[in-house]
C-alpha cells in the first residue's frame, strides 16, 4: 500500500514538475489537482507496437454477420426503417433517430438483412440471481442482423456533399453530425448533436486523456490520424462557438503528443501572425493519473471548475468531447460518412497479438478475438471496456458497439478472478483507503454499507449517483471487495424500483377503475330503487299489478301467485325491498367515501 501511495504521489506531484523543467510542451497552463486517483500499471505498450489495422483489408476480413442493436446510446431507441430481406448498401440508414434526442444507425457494410431479433448487449451475466443488477441492464435488445455480401458497396448515385466546412453554417454542420448518427464514443454514448446544441460555450476540451490501463484506441488514433482529430476539433469549435479549444493528453503519451503538437504548429504557422493568438487552439498535458479522463475530472484538472452534482458540464460553459468523437465529426462533415466504424483496442495477455483495429460497428467479438489469436486455455474473461470500468461480455457473439473502445481478453495476469459465492470477498475493515483515492470525494465504504443493506435513502444521500464507477476504490481495497459492482447494482435497483412514475400511473389507473366500479354499483342500486318506487306509485294509483311494464320479462299468462296476494301484502313486500336496497346503497356509498378519504 505504501508503495502504491508513494508511486501515485510521485506521478501526481513530482512528474509534472520534472516535465515542466525539461521544457516539454503544454505545461504553460496551470493545472488543478484532482483529489484521489490511482496510478495503476498501464500495460499500454502491449497494443501500441503495431499500427491500426483497418477492417475490410487482407489481414482482417469482414465478418459473416453484423449485429446492430438499436440501443447503443443514451436516449430513445432508434426506429427501424428496413425490414427482413432488404438489401442495404454501406452507409445506408437502417434505423432512424427517434426524435431530436435520438441517434440514427447506418449499415457498416452492404448485404441482406437476415433477421431483426433480440441480441444481448455486452454486459455481465448475473452470477447470483439474488444480486441481479445485471439482469436489469441485461435486457434483450432488438438488433438488426446483416449478412454481409463482401462487396462493401456504396449506394449508387449517392454523392456526399463535399464542400469546405469553413463556409457552412454551424446549424448545417450540426445537422450533418446529427445525420451521421454520432454519439459520444468515450463510453457513455451521449448523443453528440444534443451536446453541440448547447449555447454559451466558452471552452471546448478535447479529451485525449485515456487513463484506463490497457486501452490505447485514442492514443493510436492521435498518433496516426492527428490531422483528422484536430480538424474535427475545429469543426466542433465552429459549431459550438467556443473561444478556445484545448486538447488534453496525458503526459506519458509521447508519440501522440508529438503528432498533435506537429499538426497544431502547422495550423498556427499557416495562420496570419496577427491571428495566431486568436485561434485558441492549444495542447495541455495532464498528469497520468487514473481517472483523469473522466469528463468532470478532466474539466476539473484543466479549468479548475467543479461541475456541480447533477449538472452537466455545458451548464458551466465547458464542452468536452473525446478525440474519437472529434474524428467521427470530421468524417461526417468532410466526407459525409456516417459513424459505422470505430477504433477498438484488442488487448490482454490471452491474445497472441495485441493490436488496435478499426472495426465496423456490429462486428461480433468472437470474430475479432479469432483474428487476434485468442488462447482459450489462458482466457479468463472477456471484458468490453477496460479492466476497471468494463463490462464482462455475456457471450462471444455480442457485437462491438459505438461506445466499445476496448476488448480485453484477460488472462489471470490481467484480471483478478471474480468474487463468487464459493469465494466471497472479505469484510470491510474501514481502512479508509477507498476514500483517499475517490476522485469525487465520496465515502465509498459508507456507500458500500448502504448498498449492502439496501438502505437506498442513505445511498442517495451519500452521493451514490455522483459516483463515476471508476473502480479506483475497488483496486485499493485490501479486502478485495468489488465495490463498484455494489454501486452499479444499487443504482440499477434504485432506478428500476424507482420507476415510480409508471407505478404511480398504474396505481392511479387502478384507483380510477375501483372508483368506477363502486359508482356503477351505487347506480345499479339506484335503478332498482327507482323501479320499486314506480311499482309503489302504480299501486297507489290503483293500476292492476299484472301490467308490470317496467320489468323486461314477458308477463306470465297465469298471474295466479300475484293475484293470490292482496294488494296490501304486495305493498309491504315492496316497501321492505325498498328499505333493503336503500340500506345497501347507503353502505356502498359509505364504503366509497371511506376509500376516497383514505386516498386523501
Amino acid at each position, binding site marked *: 500500500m505504501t508503495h502504491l501511495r508513494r508511486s501515485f504521489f510521485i506521478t501526481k506531484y513530482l512528474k509534472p514538475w520534472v516535465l515542466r523543467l525539461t521544457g516539454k510542451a503544454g505545461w504553460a497552463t496551470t493545472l488543478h489537482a484532482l483529489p484521489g486517483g490511482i496510478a495503476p500499471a498501464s500495460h499500454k505498450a502491449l497494443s501500441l507496437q503495431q499500427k491500426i489495422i483497418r477492417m475490410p483489408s487482407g489481414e482482417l476480413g469482414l465478418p459473416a454477420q453484423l449485429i446492430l442493436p438499436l440501443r447503443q446510446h443514451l436516449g430513445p431507441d432508434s*426506429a427501424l426503417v428496413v*425490414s427482413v430481406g432488404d438489401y442495404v448498401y454501406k452507409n445506408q440508414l437502417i434505423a432512424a433517430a427517434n426524435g431530436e434526442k435520438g441517434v440514427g444507425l447506418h449499415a457498416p457494410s452492404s448485404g441482406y438483412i437476415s433477421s431483426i431479433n433480440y441480441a444481448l448487449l455486452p454486459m455481465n451475466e448475473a452470477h447470483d440471481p439474488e444480486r441481479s443488477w445485471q439482469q436489469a441492464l441485461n435486457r434483450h435488445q432488438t438488433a438488426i442482423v446483416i449478412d454481409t455480401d463482401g462487396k462493401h458497396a456504396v449506394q449508387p448515385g449517392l454523392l456526399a456533399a463535399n464542400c469546405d466546412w469553413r463556409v457552412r453554417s454551424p446549424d448545417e454542420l450540426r445537422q450533418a453530425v446529427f445525420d451521421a448518427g454520432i454519439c459520444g464514443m468515450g463510453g457513455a454514448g451521449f448523443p453528440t448533436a444534443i451536446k453541440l446544441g448547447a449555447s454559451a460555450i466558452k471552452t471546448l476540451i478535447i479529451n485525449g486523456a485515456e487513463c484506463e490501463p490497457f486501452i490505447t484506441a485514442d492514443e493510436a488514433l492521435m498518433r496516426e490520424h492527428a490531422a483528422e482529430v484536430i480538424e474535427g476539433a475545429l469543426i466542433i469549435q465552429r459549431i459550438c462557438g467556443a473561444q478556445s479549444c484545448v486538447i488534453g493528453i496525458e503526459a506519458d503519451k509521447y508519440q501522440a503528443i508529438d503528432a498533435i503538437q506537429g499538426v497544431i504548429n502547422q495550423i498556427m504557422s499557416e495562420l496570419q501572425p496577427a491571428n495566431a493568438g486568436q485561434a485558441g487552439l492549444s495542447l495541455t498535458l495532464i498528469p497520468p493519473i487514473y481517472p483523469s479522463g473522466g469528463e468532470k475530472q478532466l474539466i476539473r484538472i484543466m479549468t479548475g471548475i467543479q461541475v456541480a452534482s447533477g449538472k452537466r458540464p455545458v451548464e458551466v460553459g465547458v464542452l468536452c468531447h473525446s478525440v474519437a468523437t472529434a474524428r467521427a465529426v470530421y468524417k461526417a462533415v468532410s466526407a459525409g460518412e456516417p459513424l459505422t466504424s470505430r477504433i477498438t483496442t484488442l488487448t490482454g495477455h490471452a491474445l497472441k497479438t495485441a493490436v488496435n483495429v478499426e472495426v465496423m460497428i456490429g462486428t461480433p467479438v468472437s470474430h475479432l478475438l479469432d483474428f487476434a489469436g485468442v488462447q482459450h486455455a489462458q482466457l479468463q474473461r472477456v471484458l468490453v471496456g477496460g479492466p476497471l470500468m468494463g463490462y464482462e461480455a455475456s457471450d462471444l457473439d455480442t457485437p462491438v458497439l459505438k461506445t466499445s473502445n476496448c476488448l480485453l481478453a484477460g488472462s489471470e495476469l490481467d484480471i483478478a478472478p471474480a468474487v463468487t459465492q464459493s469465494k466471497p470477498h472479505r469484510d470491510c475493515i474501514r481502512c479508509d483507503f477507498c476514500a483517499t483515492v475517490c476522485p469525487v470525494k465520496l465515502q465509498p465504504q459508507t456507500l458500500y454499507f448502504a448498498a449492502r443493506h439496501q*438502505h437506498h435513502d442513505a445511498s442517495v444521500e451519500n452521493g451514490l449517483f455522483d459516483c463515476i464507477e471508476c473502480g479506483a476504490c475497488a483496486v485499493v481495497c485490501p479486502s478485495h471487495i468489488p465495490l463498484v459492482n455494489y454501486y452499479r447494482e444499487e443504482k440499477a435497483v434504485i432506478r428500476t424500483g424507482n420507476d415510480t412514475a409508471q407505478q404511480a400511473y398504474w396505481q392511479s389507473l387502478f384507483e380510477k377503475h375501483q372508483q368506477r366500479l363502486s359508482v356503477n354499483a351505487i347506480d345499479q342500486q339506484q335503478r332498482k330503487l327507482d323501479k320499486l318506487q314506480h311499482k309503489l306509485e302504480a299501486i297507489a294509483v290503483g293500476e292492476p299489478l299484472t301490467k308490470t311494464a317496467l320489468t323486461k320479462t314477458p308477463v306470465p299468462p297465469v298471474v295466479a301467485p300475484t293475484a293470490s296476494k292482496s294488494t296490501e301484502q304486495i305493498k309491504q313486500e315492496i316497501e321492505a325491498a325498498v328499505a333493503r336496497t336503500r340500506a345497501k346503497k347507503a353502505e356502498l356509498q359509505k364504503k366509497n367515501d371511506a376509500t376516497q378519504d383514505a386516498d386523501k
Partner: protein
Amino acid sequence: MISMLAAVLVLAALVFGFAWLMLRAERLLGADELHNAKATVTLINSINNLLPQTQCGQCGFPGCRPYAEAISRGENINRCPPGGAHTIKRIAALLDLPVVPLDTSHGWHLPKRIASIREHECIGCTKCIQACPVDAIVGAPKRMHTVIVADCTGCDLCVDPCPVDCIDMLPLPIMSAHASVTVVVQK
C-alpha cells in the same frame, strides 16, 4: 472500591430510570389511537409503494393496495410473484422481518410481459375489458378490442376470460414492433 461501587450504582440507576421513562413514553404514545390509525395508513401506503402495482391479484387479494393492507395486518410478505425477491427484500427491510423466498404457489417471478390481442380473431365480447384492473383495454360490444400498451401492467387477468383465446402475453421488447409497422407504411 467505594467510588467504583458508586459509579456502578449511579449508572444502573440511570439505566433503569431511562428505561422506565421510555416505557412510560411508549405507553403514552401507544394510548393515542388516532396516532396509531395514522401510522397504519402511512404504513399501508409505504408498503403499497413497494409493491409493483401490476394489480394482478396473484397474491389472492384484489389488487396491490388490498394486499398492502393485508400485509399490515400480518399477511405473509412473499405472495407477490411480479415483485419477486427484490420486493420481498424491500418489504422485509421496511417491516424488519426476515427475508423469505417467494411462495411459488401464487406464481413464478417472470419477466414483465404485455398483453396483445390478435385483433382479427377478436369477437368483441368485452369480457377482457371487464377483467382488466387498470382499464387498459379499449373496445365496444361486437367491435374489435385492443390493448393500450402504455397502460398494460402485464397482469394476465384478461387471458382466461377470452372465449376465443385471442390474447397473447408477449415479452416487453416487442413494443418496438410498432416501429416495424411504420416501416411498412413508409415504404
